[in-house]
């Protein structure tokens, strides 16, 4: 380990945040308060989670691991649901999408031997899957709302020609899934060239040899692509139906 970090060094690096506060004051952006609030929240949350994780990792029980994954998945589903802008059943849809994605991805990773079923490996990986799925699903909800509103007449015309809601929504679904996946595909293209991802940097920082860190990063990249594909596909296909009633009428 070649880490030099300590509470003192962190306190000193707080100077970096002050740069943001200074710019905010100088340009009268009005974000100084928000910067300080966000930073304070982040510090409190991270410190708390640090202690909780240390304790839970010490327990090393499969039940606790499953419980943690469950709580993280539910939180992610709840947050994705809040971004749905009142799409009916969005909590149920988010839960199905996130839980299926988490279960499937973790199963593949554990069975392939890439990670072990221990809290210290499952919890961080689940966090990445949940976070990615939550962002993707939120993006899908936003796109569905926008596209169904903008293409209202097109949907009505397709229905009036005898299309099913699925046939009438096909182009919107395609676009939604594609744009839900786009950010992760874009970052996969520039990985290592423009960005050195957090996990890889963290491992190298902590003294792991770059090739091992890179192998883990490759695994994470696969996982992120699978997560965005799965979660956007499941959420979009379950959510589009909420825009229609039982009489196959468009509710927008």
């Amino acid at each position: 380990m070649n880490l030099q970090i300590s509470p003192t060094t962190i306190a000193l690096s707080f100077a970096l945040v002050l740069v943001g506060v200074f710019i905010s004051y100088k340009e009268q952006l009005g974000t100084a308060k928000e910067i300080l609030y966000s930073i304070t929240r982040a510090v409190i949350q991270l410190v708390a989670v640090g202690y909780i994780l240390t304790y839970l990792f010490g327990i090393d029980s499969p039940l606790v691991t499953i419980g943690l994954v469950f709580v993280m998945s539910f939180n992610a589903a709840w947050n994705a649901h809040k971004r749905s802008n009142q799409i009916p059943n969005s909590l149920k849809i988010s839960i199905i999408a996130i839980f299926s994605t988490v279960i499937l991805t973790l199963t593949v990773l554990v069975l392939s031997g890439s990670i072990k079923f221990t809290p210290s490996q499952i919890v961080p990986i689940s966090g990445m899957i949940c976070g990615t799925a939550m962002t993707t699903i939120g993006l899908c909800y936003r796109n569905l709302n926008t596209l169904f509103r903008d293409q209202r007449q097109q949907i009505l015309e397709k229905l009036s020609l005898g299309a099913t809601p699925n046939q009438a929504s096909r182009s919107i679904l395609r676009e939604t899934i594609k744009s839900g996946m786009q950010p992760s595909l874009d970052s996969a293209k520039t990985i290592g060239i423009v960005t050195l991802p957090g996990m890889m940097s963290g491992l190298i920082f902590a003294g792991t040899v770059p090739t091992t860190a890179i192998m883990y990063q490759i695994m994470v990249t696969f996982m992120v692509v699978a997560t965005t594909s799965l979660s956007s596909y499941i959420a979009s296909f379950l959510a589009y139906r909420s825009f229609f009633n039982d009489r196959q009428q468009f509710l927008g």
Partner: protein
Amino acid sequence: MALLEIKQLSFESEGKKILADIQFTVESGEFVSITGPSGSGKSTLLKIIATILSKTNGELLYNGRSIEQYDPIEYRKEVSYCFQSPVLFGDTVRDNLSFPYEIRQMAFDQQKATDYLGMVGLPEDYLDKPINALSGGEKQRIALIRNVLFQPKILLLDEVTSALDEENRQIIWHWLQEMRSTTEMTILMISHNEAEAALADKRIRIVDGKIVHKEELQNEFAN
């Protein structure tokens, strides 16, 4: 038995009465014109018949059966609604004319599509023309072909000629006449054009959501 029977139909939206006590019948093969001032509920009536909207009260029978008893998807393939100022899909005319085939899971019949293009005065190569290169009149013609490629039993036309110039209006009007003379298609058409309305078998005038005038006409339209 009438093809379409509407009994004491009403429609309310957000507490506002849009249609009240609408009652009339349509026989198979009839051409019915619906006139009335803007905002009188004419489009709403056609959308209810097309099942795009649901009535609030009353009865709507198609072939003697309540429309609620039909599968809406199958029903809409028989009772087809064409919008005023329609929106075309995809990129080209082909995307639009192949759509009715796609939803029936059938292979696109290019010959039939080009035949229909010819009937409305558009050349064969229009099939691959980008939709944003079309004029308003051309878009309206493509949208109409989209509705009639599989010959619905009832064609609901919502002011399809009102935004068009005289030349385009004539093209569509003559085509409709031709279709009426060669098929059994029943047409309900909202029109502001008195000359068109006068050629119908039946004329219905709606004002403030109520039928104020119903008239059977003798006309030569089908001939």
